[in-house]
Structures are given as structure tokens and as C-alpha cells.
């Protein structure tokens, strides 16, 4: 639909007529009974991507996690996170060196807690939408695998990363 509308917007000639044209195209074969788009405003030009300039440490990424309450380090949780990390992440990650993916010992210093959890929980979307994750895919080529973890499991892994960082 946007493709049909854009020229009208750019030329700014009779926008309402071209909007009508768009409606014609939309209703052409659908029976024309109802058209949800009819009340929508004409398409706006796409915004430039402001996130590209965001500080990686502040950027929360794209996904289910919008805020993480860190608090004191929970060593029990970190120990459980270590187990998960070792069984599910070490195929591609090492703590102290680049492997299939980036090294992770200092990841909590490089990324926000939300970003880390979103990258674990929602990697497919992250490498398409998040500017930092996109850069990583371009650099490492092998995509971050979605290991289908629960939020609770991802939080434990995050706690493990925090414990490493604090021990350094």
C-alpha cells in the first residue's frame, strides 16, 4: 500500500485523490465491503533511525525485556546461570576470547542488562532490528542461535555474567 501512496506524498498534488486511488486498489478484489485502511492517514515518510546513535550500554535492544532490576549479586542464581551457560552457550561462546560469537567475560560492561537478555531471548529479531546486533551479525556471520530459554533462565545467565564481571 505504501508504494502506491508514496508518490502522492512526495509530489503533494491532490493527495486526497491519490488516496482514493489507493482505496480503489485496495478494494479491487476483496469485495469492497470493509476497508480498515480507509480511515488511516496517508503514509508518513520513514523516520531516520535514531537508535543507531544510541549508547550501546544504554540501548535495551528489541524484545520482551524492557527493564531489569539488578540489585545485589545473587550467587545462587549466578551458579544456576553458570550451569545453563555451560550447557547451552559454550558451543559458540568463550569467556575470554572470540570464538563463533564474541567473548563474554566483560559483556555486562559493554551491554545493558536488558540488551543481554533480549539477545538471548529474541536473537532472530535482534539481528534484524537492533543496530548493535545487526553489526554483530555482519561481523560474525554466524547468527546468534535462539536456544528457546525462558525469561527466568536468561536472567540467571545474566546473573552469571555479572558475577564474572565482579570477580575480575
Amino acid at each position, binding site marked *: 500500500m505504501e508504494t502506491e501512496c508514496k508518490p502522492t506524498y512526495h509530489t503533494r498534488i*491532490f493527495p486526497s*485523490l491519490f488516496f*482514493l*486511488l489507493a482505496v*480503489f*486498489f485496495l*478494494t*479491487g*478484489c476483496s*469485495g*469492497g465491503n470493509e476497508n480498515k485502511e480507509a480511515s488511516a492517514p496517508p503514509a508518513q515518510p520513514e523516520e531516520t533511525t535514531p537508535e543507531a546513535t544510541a549508547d550501546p550500554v544504554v540501548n535495551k535492544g528489541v524484545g520482551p525485556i524492557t527493564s531489569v532490576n539488578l540489585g545485589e549479586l545473587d550467587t545462587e542464581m549466578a551458579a544456576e546461570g553458570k550451569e545453563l551457560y*555451560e*550447557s*547451552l552457550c*559454550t*558451543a*559458540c561462546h568463550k569467556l575470554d576470547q572470540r*570464538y*563463533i560469537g564474541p567473548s563474554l567475560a566483560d559483556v555486562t560492561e559493554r551491554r545493558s542488562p536488558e540488551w543481554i537478555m533480549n539477545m538471548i531471548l529474541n536473537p*532472530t529479531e535482534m539481528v534484524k532490528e537492533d543496530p548493535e546486533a545487526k553489526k554483530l551479525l555482519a561481523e560474525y*556471520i*554466524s*547468527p546468534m*542461535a*535462539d*536456544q*528457546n*530459554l525462558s525469561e527466568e533462565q536468561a536472567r540467571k545467565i545474566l546473573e552469571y555474567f555479572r558475577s564474572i564481571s565482579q570477580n575480575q
Partner: protein
Amino acid sequence: MKPLSIITTLVILGAAWLTGCTPEGSNTGQGGALSSADAASRVYVPPGEHDEFYAFMSGGFSGQISVYGLPSGRLFRVIPVFSQDAEKGYGYNEETKPMLQTSFGFVPWDDSHHPELSQTDGVPDGRWIFINGNNTPRIARVDLSTFETAEIIEIPNSGGNHSSPFITANSEYVVAGTRFSVPIPNEDMALAEYKDKFKGSLSFISVADDGDMDVAFQVLVPGYDYDLAHAGKGKSHGWVFFTTYNTEKASTLKEIGASQNDKDFIAAVNWQKAEEYLAQGKAHEMSASYYNNEYSDENHSATSTLKNSVNVLIPEECPGLVYFLPTPKSPHGVDVDPTGEYIVGNGKLSADMSVHSFTKMMQAIENEDFETTIDGIPVLNYETVLDGIVKEAGLGPLHTEFDGKGNAYTSFFISSEVVKWKTDTKEVVDRAPSYYSIGHLMIPGGDSQQPWGKYLVSLNKITKDRYLPTGPELTQSAQLYDISGDKMELLLDFPTVGEPHYAQALPADLLKPKSVKTFRLEDNQHPYATVTEADAKVTREGNEVHIYITSIRSHFKPDNIEGIRVGDKVYIHLTNLEQDWDVPHGLSVMGANNAEILVMPGQTETLLWEPGKPGIYPFYCTDFCSALHQEMQGYIRVSPSGSNTDLTWSTGE
């Protein structure tokens, strides 16, 4: 350009656009004359959108089931059932070889004819689909959450399983009737003894709540050919009807010998009565030898169990268990309408089709209105049970399905057409040609109590000139008709995998939400699973080597292995560590004498490899998995027999 002229132009343009398309259904009543564009628009599923129905078509002599979308006719998947499938490793890997085990040994092929969906309250419920193996008598159950074969059971005392696996309204039983009568138990015997010694068997295979199949009982019947079946429904629930031919008991040139009698029979079996007789201990426990093979999604492996006996009921000892309904002439399909009242005998050598009434049948049984009795089976009076005749509807009626609106649709093989008739008046109301030689036809839910009567699929044996030629062997095909209006409208031809012998379909919404995406690694109970890379290893016991190997995009661990020797039996157990949808990894090794393995996320599969000469053997991932797929490879060093090369393994060292 002035504003006014722009408006005029737009109005004209818009009108032209709109008139180019016709609202759905407006063609009904116009003699089925469809423009190509109109037909195309009605089967068109735009890119990225989904079909309305899943259709499951048997592969006939391919031994498999293929999964299509309707109305588009797009092929999604071929499910290997009775035949080895090198693409998926089915029947080649160690885990699924037991699925094809039979009392005749490993039988890696069969002829799969009739898919049948599981039902609850007479309606397809989307749990499983069953299918018969015609040649080496078997029934398979396919799980519709994984689209994988979950179980195969062999049918004892059978010479060929054609009238199968038709299902009862609550999936209590799937049935099997022997197409070839044989000595029971089977033994060395002169063929001249056919008339006196050969027997038929009608088997009832129970289906447990978890799907588990078991041969509950068999009914021993005269030595005819048992052709097809369907269960009663609604008022006729509790009965299963089987067609017979060769009531002449010819053992040679059946083409002529089995076509002498004016009427053969539909055998009506009261399975609730059978359950009473079983409870009373009337069954004979016969020794028999047959396999039951079951696949588990917990350990991703199949196990074979040999069974040693079967319960057999003899009609002479069990009054009220079986009745014969005389039916002209070599009836092929027997189809029960959604109300359960009409029992349609598709007399393939008769010009007319006989429709029996279940109510009249019950009345005749109550009145003991019998023509005669054969081996303890009362033969009901044809005139008494007949509800009516569909007169000269076509040539060679084979099968009938229903639309739930009082209409029946019958396939006519010889005259190559679909004929629509009214179940109550038996009046023919429409006919449409099929291209060519239709066998079965299928309406989604059309053999159940609740048909979704929008489309009909004609399953054709011969295509001749319909497609681009491909040498002597041509594709077989299906054709899609819209049956929502008064007239059938042919919308689409599409080629099929193997012979689309019979099919079933149901609304996509019944299956889509429960389709399994991955197997959880933590639930993997495979004895050779490696659920984390740290546990990857190679072990040796004598000449048996087990490689515990993992895959994740885009490497194997281990990918360098040394210390294998000529003469070793090398079991490569690949666990796919991925936990994301649609990321299988495959593995193949140079010179392996079987096939690749193709491992779903969280699954473990095993390739048995017996290297025959020393050297370096590459192995690699066969399923394009990522940008670094081509890098997903490794080496195995094979040393001469008796050498002492250390057994070592590594990745990235």
C-alpha cells in the same frame, strides 16, 4: 491535468479494476463455465499466506503420505511411512529401522492406500492419521503434531490389507480386512483347496487414548476378497461395513471368475456385540506372529515388539456378530452418509448403485428376514434392506463422499466423472468430468459425521496429456472442484507424489496451533544423546565405536576424529543442539552405505558407518543451515585394521 479530468480518469480506472474481478460464488448456476482468471483467483493463496485446509494424500505405491494445502494444491511435506526415505534418513538411521520390522523381516516398502483421520464424536479431531500397508499387511499411525510416523502394527492372519484403516466414531477401532483370502493360519497347501480351506479375516485394531494400537480381535469369515470398509455413525455407530467380491471363491483369472455372481455382499459387523463375546470368553486365542513398532519422541527411537497371539471370533459361535447384505455387483467402496442411515454400495460392475437403509437392516435382523446362512452368517434379503437405487448414474462407481447438505458425490472410474446425487431421493443432480480415470474422491471430513463441504478433490489414476510429458512415466494427479454451489466447478489440476489413492482433509486451524517446533534438549532421553558440547566424545569397545557428536550453527563437535580402523562399526550419534524452529542439521560421511541423517532441533539420530578402506573421510552438514554452512564439516581418519592409532577427537584445537 485539471482536477476534474483526474477524477474522471480515476473513476474509469477504478471501475475497470473492479469489473475485472467477480465476487466469489457468483458463477454458481452457470453450468460450471469458469473463466481461467476466476478459477485462478479462487485457488490463489498470496505469498506468505496460508491455505484453508490441510490435505493428506496417500502415495499409493510410494508407501508414503504427502501433505498439501487446499485450495492451492501446494505440496508441503512427504511423510515417510512404509517406505525408506533417504532424504529424511527414515528407515536408514538406527532409530527408525525398527519401524519397518515385520514377521517377514525388514520390509522397506509398501503400498499405502487409505489415510484416515482420527475422530471424536464422528468428527476428524487432528490427533493422528492412520494408513494401511496393502502388501505386507500393516497399519501405521502418524502423529499430526510432528507429522512423523509414530507406530506401525502388522496384521496377522491376512493376505493383504486393503479394506483399511477405516475408523469408528470415537477412534475406538481402526479396521483391516484381508483382500486376499489365505489359509488361516497360513500354511503350505494346494491352491486347488482355495474353495474349502481359504478364509478371510476382519480385524479390529483398538486405539488407546495415547494412540497405542493393538489387535483387539479378528472375525473369521468366508474366503472372499474383502475390499473396502466404513464404520457406521450416528444411529449406525457400533457397526462396521465391509464390501466383498469374489464370493465365487475363484482362485485364478479373477478378472472373470470373480465377476460371475449378480450380487456379492456387504458384511455388517457389530463390534459392540463382539466386545460382549470377548468379555464372555468366546474368543479363540490363536497363535500368530506379528510386530508392533512404536516410535517415541522422548528417546527419538523406535522399538519393535513381537506379539504371539490374537483373539479370533467365529461367526457360527457368535450369533448377531455378522450379517451379509447382498449388493450388486463386486461392490468396491462402502460409504455411510453423515446421518448413519444410508449405506452406499458402489457396485463397480453394475450400472446401478444400491443404497441400503440402516433402519431397514435393523428391522430385517429383528424379523430374521434371511435369505440363507453362510458359515453361520445370515444373509439378509436384498429387497428388504434396500432403500433405493441410483439409476444408471455412470460407469464403474467406486467411492462416495458427502457434503453434509444431503448430497452424495460418487466417482465413476470408467466414465471418468464425478456424479452428484441426493441421498434421500437418489436423484442425479449434477455431473462433472475428471481427467482421467478417477479412483477415490475426497471432501474434507466427507466420510465423517461433519463434512466441510466446500471443496471436492478427485484423485486420478491417469493424466495422459494433462501435463508436460516426462517420458513413459507420467505424474498422477488431483483435481479440485468447488462444490459450494449447485454445480460442481473445476478449479485446479495439480500433480501428486505417487498415486493419490485416497485422501483426507481438515481445516488448517485444527492442526496449525499444535505443530511441534523443536524438541527440548533437556527432555532428550536418547541413550546416546549429547546435550552439551562438553560431553562430546568418542568411545570404543572392541570394534564398535560410538561418536557422540553435536551440531550447532555452524560446526560439529568433534570435527577431527582419529583412531578409527577398517573393520570398525562406527555409530555416529548426532544431537542437534539447536533449540530454534526450522534449524535441522544433517550429516553424511563419504562412502556410507545408507543415507544421510537429518536431525531436528533437540533430537538425536544415528548413522551406522562401516569404513572399508584406510584414508581420510570428510563429513559435512547436508541441510543448508547458515551463511557458514559450507564450513560445517569435519574429517575422520581411518587407519588399517589392527593399527594402533590413538583414538582422539577435538574441535578448534
